């Protein structure tokens, strides 16, 4: 094959390959994970986090406002400590409450923020006081069964 023809085809091939990589990075993957967005960190303690994992979304009113950075266990309070990385452009009142919710019946767990009414906003390093633990399906079923049993006993 002619020299310039070979050059042209190799050029097409390389451009195509790089285009495919860009397609994977921009269209299939999320661009947010490439650029580490500036954020502030807030922590919260829970009695039970269920199946919450790092990188799970943090949502408020259904909009993703940040991600779970880490999940650890505190030896002092004997509770789970969840650190949240929130986007700087979203501000929440200091008395906001966080809860662990599930998307769908069997979906992944995420953290929901319900804004409070305080005048000051949450800042980097703050701790959210009001938390609501994950609903553990086994416990709910257990309570339901227990309730049914005691109902029968009283009849």
């Amino acid at each position: 094959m002619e020299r310039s023809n070979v050059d042209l085809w190799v050029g097409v091939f390389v451009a195509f390959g790089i285009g495919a990589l860009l397609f994977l990075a921009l269209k299939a993957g999320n661009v947010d994970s490439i650029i580490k967005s500036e954020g502030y960190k807030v922590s919260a303690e829970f009695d039970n986090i269920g199946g919450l994992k790092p990188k799970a979304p943090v949502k408020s009113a259904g909009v993703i406002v940040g991600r779970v950075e880490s999940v650890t266990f505190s030896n002092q309070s004997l509770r789970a400590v969840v650190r949240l990385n929130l986007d700087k452009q979203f501000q929440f009142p200091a008395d906001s409450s966080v809860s662990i919710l599930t998307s769908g019946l069997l979906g992944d767990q995420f953290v929901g923020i319900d804004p409070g009414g305080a005048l000051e906003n949450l800042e980097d390093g703050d701790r959210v006081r009001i938390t609501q633990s994950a609903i553990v399906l086994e416990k709910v079923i257990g309570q339901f069964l227990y309730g049914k049993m005691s109902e029968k006993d009283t009849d």
Partner: protein
Amino acid sequence: MTFFRQILSRLGRATINSIWRLGEASVFMARVVSRSSIVLRRPRLLVAEIHFAGVLSLVIIIVSGLFVGLVLGLQGYETLKRYGSTGAVGTLVALSLVRELGPVVAALLFASRAGSAITAKIGIMKTTEQLSAMEMMAVDPHARVVAPMFWGGFISMPLLAAIFSAMGIIGGYLITVVVIGVDSGAFWSQMQSSVDFHHDILNGVIKSVVFGAAVSAIAVYEGYASVPTAEGVSRAVTRTVVTSALAVLALDFVLTAFMFTGAH
């Protein structure tokens, strides 16, 4: 007693032989890599080899990628339909392609399309004594012939794997969104929320780079070490395909064990 002796000595010979071959291959590859500066001094050699290994494999990679995506989309849809979460089909297609199928299937196709061609080319050059002729003219065949072929394959493979994954995702999109009618927004947004750039895409690229190095090294070595007869070259080509396939699958297991398990 003599029977056992025979079996044991055969085992010993096979072991020594394979270790010897491994050593020879390492020395050969070290020599090729150390003479690779020719690739920078005469880039036209490399361009010709990228054309030989990459451009000529383009059609098979695009067509197979598309069909793998179509099948993944169909099967994923049929299974996810039972749980009422057909929107997740995009996630399924993208993750399985980017993490596993893209690099692995592209590497297997690359080994059978380009690897075998590289082995045959070097083997026939050896059979027709072109390599010896080069040595007589004080041209090092490691540098002039083998190094550009190795680097050509090494560069082509990650690009081919990326094209394979991209075509597969397009195939999955075509069958599930265009033909079956899954919601387009759910398809892309669920995919984007679960495909991570570092964890999934970058690890897939690393895999394809490793596979490209392995397949290209096996192909050039088998060609160079082939017995210079018609039968010897045909055996070398067979060995290239078989060894590359085994190497790719074994390496894939090791890399997956390192990349996708443990604390995330």
